[in-house]
């Protein structure tokens, strides 16, 4: 982290990208995409998030241990969401056909 310092140009570029992405996400939200609206908004947010993590928080040049911690945090969040949704989404399914139940 304390090796040579990142140039202002890179930071400015990343900053510009973030502002551009914000504008696009607002613009995209005005279009009528139905279910894809959610997907677009989320992907843009994920891109912006990775940009901030990689460049502004300098995880790009950090030790592999830091990258592992960041990955672990997101993975555990994913565990919570996946298993929580696994209950809610599978509530409505029809009970399984009778042939299997003895």
């Amino acid at each position, binding site marked *: 982290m304390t090796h040579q310092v990142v140039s202002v140009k890179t930071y400015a570029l990343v900053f510009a990208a973030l502002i551009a992405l914000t504008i696009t996400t607002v613009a995209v939200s005005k279009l009528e995409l139905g279910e894809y609206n959610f997907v677009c908004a989320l992907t843009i947010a994920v891109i912006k998030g990775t940009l901030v993590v990689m460049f502004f928080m300098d995880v790009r040049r950090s030790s592999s241990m830091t990258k592992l911690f960041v990955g672990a945090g997101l993975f555990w969040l994913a565990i919570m969401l996946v298993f929580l949704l696994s209950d809610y989404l599978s509530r409505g399914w029809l*009970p399984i056909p009778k042939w299997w139940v003895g």
Partner: protein
Amino acid sequence: MGSFSIFPERASTSAGEVDALYGFLLIVGITMTVLIFACVFFFAIKYRRRSDQERPQLIHGSLPLEIAWSVIPFLVMLVMFAWGTKLYFQNYTLPYKDTLDIYVTGKQWMWKIQYPGGQREINELHVPTGRAVKLILASEDVIHSFFIPAFRLKHDVVPGSYQTYWFEATKPGRYHIFCAEYCGTNHSRMTGWVTVMEPAAYQTWLSGGSEGGSLVAQGAKLFQQYGCVSCHLTDTQGRCPSLRNVFGNPVVLEDGRTVVADESYIRESILNPNAKIVKGYHRDIMPVFQGQIGEEGLLQLIVYIKSLSTPAPPQTAATKGSPTQVPK
């Protein structure tokens, strides 16, 4: 309960199977415990420290042994998992044939039980032997849990939705009903009795008294009162689906899913109509009844709607070995 036994009475078809699985788990558990206790004490005695200069021989470990005592226990656990899951699905998947539907409503510290014939009881449940009984469980305030140890069955009674499970009583007698989910001050007084009777005795009990008219009559009154009849029965402009022959049959929804119109579906469509819109009909026409109809009214409406549809055709494919056919 003269003789002391570690099993409560077996009074339902599934009780026997649950006890069999419990027996299997007990055997596995006891063998493992005895094995571990024996090893620990045998090693502790055989290899006790005799002098301070002892230098035990270095043993790093053995891969085959490690793999053996990881895979073998896991296989045994898979047997437990499969057997347990099959039994669970069997208890909670409603049997195909017509069941005696009894409506149980948990209210802080009492169980209100209503029969299709209109009888109502508090903390008392009467069921005949030899017939599948379906319990439709609702709660008016907090989470309770309708637990009958003799049938080895329990289910949480969550306010705001219907939970159902079924059993088939086999042994006449009087068994406990407990509330198993903590629900406040008198949680431990929220108990009752289930009386299992022979079918003949049950009929005489049934005809004993059914005050207040059957649920269906009361349901019809409400169906009128809330104006459902104008849309759902006599309507011709097709603004909303007719409710004749709807109950118990699959319904195709607007987003393509098919859902069986059971009690939960009817209840949800009354309280929050936009949750599931039938294909070909529009949103936001039916008013929201959330908070306007009490649990009592909902039950009566559902029983009335059920009476509008002819009973579901008996399942054609004869399911072999289904509990109800095996002569006890």
